[in-house]
């Protein structure tokens, strides 16, 4: 069965670039929408994570 499916792909190789483009655009649009819809508060919290001061860590200045 798998073999037949794969042989079938051979005839439609021209569709591969189109399929790739569709997958990519959908994916990229999804990620952008997701990132844009994040709340300010959450984004601030996340970006502060590496900076939270730790005992024993000296400031670099």
């Amino acid at each position: 069965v798998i073999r037949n499916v794969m042989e079938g792909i051979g005839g439609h190789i021209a569709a591969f670039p189109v399929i790739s483009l569709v997958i990519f655009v959908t994916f990229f649009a999804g990620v952008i929408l997701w990132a844009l819809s994040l709340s300010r508060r959450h984004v601030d919290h996340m970006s502060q994570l590496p900076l939270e001061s730790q005992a024993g860590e000296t400031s670099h200045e």
Partner: protein
Amino acid sequence: MKIETFKYDNAIVRAFAIASVAFGIIGMLVGLLAAVQIFWPAANMGLPFTTFGRIRPLHTNAVIFAFVGNAMFAGIYYSMQRLCKARLFSDLLSWIHFWGWQAIILSAAITLPLGITTSKEYAELEWPIDLAITLVWVVFAINFFGTLAKRRERHMYVAIWFYISTVITVAVLHIVNSFELPLSWLKSYSMYAGVQDALVQWWYGHNAVAFFLTTPYLGLMYYFLPKAANRPVFSYRLSIIHFWALIFIYIWAGPHHLLYSALPDWAQSLGMVFSLMLIAPSWGGMLNGLLTLRGAWDKVRQDPVLKFLVVAVTAYGMSTLEGPLMSIKSINALTHFTDYTIAHVHTGALGWNGFLTFGMMYWLIPQMYQTKLWSTKLATYHFWIGLMGMTFYVLPIYWGGITQSLMWKQFTADGLLQYPNFLETLLNIIPMHMLRALGGSLYFTGVILMVINLIKTAKQGTFLAEQEAQAPALADQELAEDAPHPYRHRWLERKPLIMTVLALVAILIGGIVEAVPTFLVRTNVPTIASVRPYTPLELHGRDLYIREGCVGCHSQMVRPFRSETVRYGDYSKAGEFVYDHPFLWGSKRTGPDLHRVGKKYPDAWHAKHMADPRSTSPGSIMPPYPWLLTRKLDTKPTVKKITLMRKLGVPYPENYELQAMDDLKAQAKAISENLKQTGAPVEADREIIALIAYMQRLGTDIRADVSGGAK
């Protein structure tokens, strides 16, 4: 809310940091030796172990897996603990990871100079070491995900996402590319052949750059750059887009290493398009890094750590613009197989990986030793010497690469090659190679300054092996959550498992779309009736070609350009490589292409050329291989080799292995007789005989006049 007290493990971070610097020095020294060998063949020292073909993979493996690898583990283990507010999952696993990784590096340092290699770039190590790598990587993964599981910070910062993608993708790449059938403890053959082997190898090779040299370092950038600048990343939203777009697109781009080769055209075009798209996330990431320093550029003037990081991020931007441009077929036609590629990867290696590592070390060591850097001035010297070294390294060979490529392609008004002698194009750019070696030495000098500085820093401080920290337990935080939060995205940053699965899916799509048709659709690799399996003697010769690392300087892939078909002969076709386990297309032409070298020169020419390349090609920079003429060929594994090849799908007739030794002896005798008659007598049982048999067979199957092979 109960506050828990726990300790960060700094000892493991320090161990990886020391290993990184120590192996970095060795790896760079070996690289320097290789650079000198290119213009001064005597630097090969007349020994098999120190000859360029064996030294070059030692250099690449040492800097990638030992220098960058150890630095990556140091950085990941340091930042993971802080970002998760938890000690690493298991001290025992941490140390198994550390010593296991060093043992792998040590075995690479022993086997590669001995000529024990699979010849697949950045995957040269033989199968027992491949297994060890898998085991150690699993240990690392358990330790990594275990730490995530016991974290006290609910949300996973973007650096951790990059680490997750590294852990899973490197595992997938390593396993898929390492499918090989062992002949003995130290020799195996790739399960894939020809075009398929090439596709898998460059899917691996390209993504090793992506997921070993890039994603973990982006994670480190997103942690250490804000840390050193003491300000949050410019845009966290951008970092999300950067991450997903990067890991999704990167995996598709592998075929750009095989443009104009015998790979099916649709796969080449796919690789090119996705490579161009990579500019977007890469530059998003670079700008995110640089803009993090907005309003803090005054700090960059004083702080060497930031200086290093800024140049690292800039080099990331330069090489990720250049890479996609080199993937455009018409540009690739010019740059491929030349030193331009070497310059390109060194912008990435010296600039991005090297400088980011140095910046990280200058920040980490004083932190862990609870002191200040011993000398800011010395670190600044390191920065400028390193930057100068980098410039002197890349600029001459960017120039030299293009110059040589143009010379290869130059025709006279009469339609003849202007430079028919390959050597002429090579000797023309030797001064560039000398400048490159000077650049490398400057860069290396900078590293020595760093070592002095870091040792002095360590001496003046006290090492804090166990750093105490406090945080509320995660369960308590959940209870303390006031309201159901309205942000549906958070779930992803809270669930390592879902995150991991999604990242895995993202990286698998591209690989599958490329690989499945190539493996299963027969029409993608048209067979050629006259192409026959190698004779037993040629098989042995091919293994010698692999052992000596010939593929490091000679391609076996004539591209379909007039300049190449006139110089070398008919262009290479996919069907010619169906019995090549592994493929030996190569990626660099320091010497000429060899795919059509068969029957081009007499046997005696090859014998003399191997003994002393300058006797047949005055001015040649090829190392001599005198030992090939004296060492006896090991014919013991002949029967086993034939049987194994048949298992891999090479159609030797039934019971051919019983006849193989006789065939081998007859062919060897004929070559030896021929050598005797033409004034280069060599006994029939020497290694050179097998190598000549292989060389004379190369690319001849489609020539009706001279075709040979196992009948």
